[in-house]
């Protein structure tokens, strides 16, 4: 089991889920669903974003903070 912190973008740190416990095999979408973060995506610690089906457990370290940000943000012209 790994414990991580999920911090929601744009909330100034006020919406932060501490001690989110991940079991092996936990995917990014599992965390978002559990935290009711519909329409969000999780950012990787080193930059970039997790795909919803990515193995989150394997990609994070114990105690790491990861960020949830709206997936709707998009560049365009």
């Amino acid at each position, binding site marked *: 089991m790994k414990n991580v912190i999920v911090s929601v973008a744009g909330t100034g740190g006020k919406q932060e889920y501490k001690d989110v416990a991940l079991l092996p095999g936990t995917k990014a979408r599992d965390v978002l669903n559990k935290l009711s973060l519909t329409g969000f995506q999780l950012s990787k610690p080193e930059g970039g974003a997790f795909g919803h089906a990515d193995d989150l457990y394997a990609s994070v370290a114990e105690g790491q903070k990861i960020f949830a940000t709206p997936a709707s*943000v*998009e560049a365009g012209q």
Partner: protein
Amino acid sequence: MRIIVGPAARTTISPAILIGPTAPVVVEPARDAAIVVEPQAVLLVEAASSVTVEAPQRAVWDDLGWIRRQDGDRIVYEGTYRARDRRIGQRVEFDGRIVERGRHFQAYIADPPPELRRHPKAPCFTRSNGPWFQVHWYRPARSADEAVLYIEKIIAECLTGDY
């Protein structure tokens, strides 16, 4: 016949050598001041009381090491966008700037990776001033946090070719 054995001639024996103790030797403590070894002031070592430090609430830009400053009627965030270049196995960074004016967040990146030219969102990054490229929004970021994380996602996609 009786045989008598005796000295052949008169023999003189020198006085005996008497070996005995000399004058008794008395060993007593030196009359110098004795060296006294004793502990100095008592030193007490005890465990320090534990201190718990909890990180305060922080915005994402703050957590990522960006700084914020007021510039007239604007708020400017400055920092670096991070990504991992798996080809070289190292983290790469690009200078970034977010200008907040009202509810609008204008994002800039300096000298973006050349791989950006092949990304579908390349037309949305236009050269602004010097090394700076401005990001044009379709669905705008509503905070500096969202802007930083989105641009980092694009950079990561450029470097992996996964888009």
